[in-house]
């Protein structure tokens, strides 16, 4: 049962990713796309954790940790660009 739940979960998260992809491609504004990318990052963490559960391994922990810790860097940089164009003033 739990395996099924994991697989179902992975598909749900996968759909979430595809939805984010849609927003990423459609926009219309830059912040929309940034948001979509950010969401894609967060969904990826979920995906990694689920995958780790499915494989019964901890090997994907580091990847998930790094995405969680630094996934927002892209968001920070892109947003700062929209705000000021010069991201490092």
């Amino acid at each position, binding site marked *: 049962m739990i395996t099924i739940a994991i697989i179902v979960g992975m598909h749900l998260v996968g759909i979430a990713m*595809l939805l984010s992809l849609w927003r990423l491609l459609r926009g219309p504004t830059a912040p929309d796309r940034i948001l*979509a990318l950010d969401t894609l990052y967060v969904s990826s963490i979920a*995906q990694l954790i689920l995958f780790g559960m499915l494989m019964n391994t901890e090997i994907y922990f*580091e990847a998930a940790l790094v995405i969680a810790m630094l996934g927002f*860097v892209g968001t920070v940089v*892109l947003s*700062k660009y929209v705000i000021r*164009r010069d*991201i*490092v003033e």
Partner: protein
Amino acid sequence: MLELLLALPFALALVVALSANASRRTVACLAGLVPLLGLGVLAFLAGDVFDGTILKTQYAWIPEAGLDFSLRMDGLAWTFALMVLGIGGLVVLYGHYYLSAKDSPRRFFTYLLLFMGAMLGMVIAGNLLLLAVFWELTSISSFLLIGFWSHRQDARQGARMALTITGMGGLALLGGVLLIGRIVGSYDLDVVLASGDLIRASHLYPWALGLVLLGIFTKSAQFPFHFWLPHAMAAPTPVSAYLHSATMVKAGVFLLARLHPALAGTDLFFYVVSGVGATTLVMGAWFAIFQHDLKGLLAYSTISHLGLITLLFGLSTEMAVVAGLFHILNHAMFKASLFMAAGIIDHETGTRDMRRLGNLRRLMPMTSALAIVASLAMAGIPLLNGFLSKEMFFAEALEIGGHGTMRWVISIAALLAGVFGIAYSLRFVHDTFFGRGPRALDVVPHEPPRWMRIPVGVLAILCLVIGIIPALTVGPLLHTMARGTLGAATPEFSLSVWHGINLPLMMSVASLVFGVLLYFGLRKLLDFHAVVTRSTGRQVFQVNLERLFSLARAFTARVANGSLQRSLFGLLLVALVLAGWPLLGNFAELIANGPGPRPLPVMGWMIWAVIVASSIGTVVVHGKRLTALIVIGGVGLAVSLMFVYLSAPDLALTQLLVEMVTIALMMMALNYLPKQSKSTRRPLRKFRDVAISIVAGGGLGALAYAMMVSPADTISNELLVRSLPEAYGRNVVNVILVDFRGFDTFGEITVFGTAALVVHALLRWARLKPDEVMPGPPVHLPIAADLTQLLFPLALTVSIYLFLRGHNAPGGGFIAGLVFAVPVLVKYVLQGARAVEATFGFDYLRGIGVGLLLAVIGGVGSWWFDVPFLTSGHLDVELPLIGLLPLASALVFDTGVYVVVFAGTLLMLSTMGTVKQRQAAEEAH
């Protein structure tokens, strides 16, 4: 002795070149030493040579190429050396007085001696390749001599023309010589000369002959390559006197004589050589009549006489060869003296234009007398040397056997040339020394210094003496020369002025009569002075050369137009050809043999969808740059996910981190780039690009597919097995990076650190103009900045964790270094570069250096244990309280990686973050 003879000119050329403070006289004396000493050497050798001995010396130079430094002297070589040195000596003497105060004698005599040396070397070379070497050296040194007055355009042009034509000939000759070498198996002159039958029988013979003849004809100014010679008259007269009488142009006919036993004796040889010679003979003589320039006339006359000599060698009978050799000697004498006389006239009157000259016999009687003697020799008047060889020529022309038509043609050509020869000689004498004039001169001409006249005198007297008593004077010499050329086939001949009344004599008389008639008849018919002759050869050459230059310019500019797109397109096209070629038509078979494709779970397809969609999305929105960057971020993420999914967590981590830093770099750059791509209105180009992209992508996909479904046999199994016991790591990828293939990583961090240096070097001193400056003061993001406060130490902790764990779990120096750098980047963005730089205070540049050194130390440490670079050691340290501490030497290496990556990343970011901006006001300056 031969080495000494050859070394003389080169050694003294060097001495002269270096004698910076020597007086003009000293320089001339030094230069004069060469012919003087050289003639001494010749005299010393004369006995042996006249006895028929062939003197040889040989040193190995490049035995691999068959190129030996071997010198060889026989009668032919001796005689030519005599001419080179003898006339060379006179030219040195003459030249000393000829050069004006503005001309540098040092330079002049250096060139002259170099040329003399090259000529000597060519003459006494005992190896055909060596001969070709000296042959080209004469071309190069004559180029310098002809262009001696480099401020004059005609000199520059003439020199280049001569170099181009004779250089081309030299290359052809080289080819010919190589072919001969291929046939004979040696370049040794003795061997080659003895292998005439072998050569003539070879299927390569026509090619070898053609190439050698091309060299000869260009050098000896034979039709259709004759035109460079008149233009070489831009040289100072001593040069002309030397190059165009005894040396440079004689090199061609020398070679014709030299190789006569090896090449002559076939119909091909006969027709080509005598045909070209006859054409040149007549044409040169005809054009000589219409020259107004003294030296121009002499130049065409030279062409004509060289044609004569060539023709004689073409006839190939032994006596013809003797006649040719004889004429070489005679022509050298009278032509050298004539050139020098022309030079004196030029020197004294300031002009060489016969239309302004005339009646000089009154002003400079001595010179005139000598010149007239030489001219008569040139015309072939009896009792002068020219007559003798011309008579022999007529005789030989009439005796051509076996070639019915050729006999008539050549006889008529001989007669015509005789007539023309009389006519232009007459013009030379008449227009210069007789008649009215001189006109419109700036000076009153008078006799030149005595020493300038002496060389002319010596030669003119020689013409007379030989003309009167040939057998006693030149007889033995000619005999030796002929024996050197023909060897055993040398005919018996006697030289005498009077052979009785025979057909040749009749021809001489006829040509004298018709020549005089022609000259005066032409004078009656048309105004000589108004005739402008154009050298069509030169025209053609010039036009073609210009065409070549403009074609080359246009073509090069058109092809290598600096277009990057073209370069890349070419690259792609070749890639498609090379990679697609083997697959074409074979693809189905390729994929049939493997284990076959495996299914991919839906999850994988979802990630696939993100990759594909955002990749195409990037292309669609690429014009809007910010958008494109965001969308491409999706590609990066999805590729990382694909890596994770397909069992590559290390890859995913690295990809993600690099992605973040890349986006940051690009955003920084975007500030200085236009926000949008200009749309290009070239639908055709777009269509082409779409097409080739699809082909390229499809091709690569197909290759990848075929590869993946074919069976694999890799060494990786062994890597897996040996990783833990021998390299002490569970994360085999990291073990490969720091151990198995640590050297790759070593190079990789060098690349990385260097890239940071390059970025730094490009931006440090630059001032850039932002594409758009937002109004107002810098924006502060206090909340975001504050929230990252805790993130930083935690990120640091994670970085250390990833670093230490890397050998056994995903991580390692590279990933850890980036994990360290990225939060600093966030600090840069949120707090501003200045604030971070002020407080953080790392010297990133040194960091790169330190990191690289650490990596080296980590690798070199193994030398202590006498094992190769980068061999990992393993040490378990037992510490009190703490317990067992496992240390792998790879850790030191990985620390180096860590430091380089951290410092390099931050150097890039901080450099880009602190770019000095250029204001619009500065722009105006």
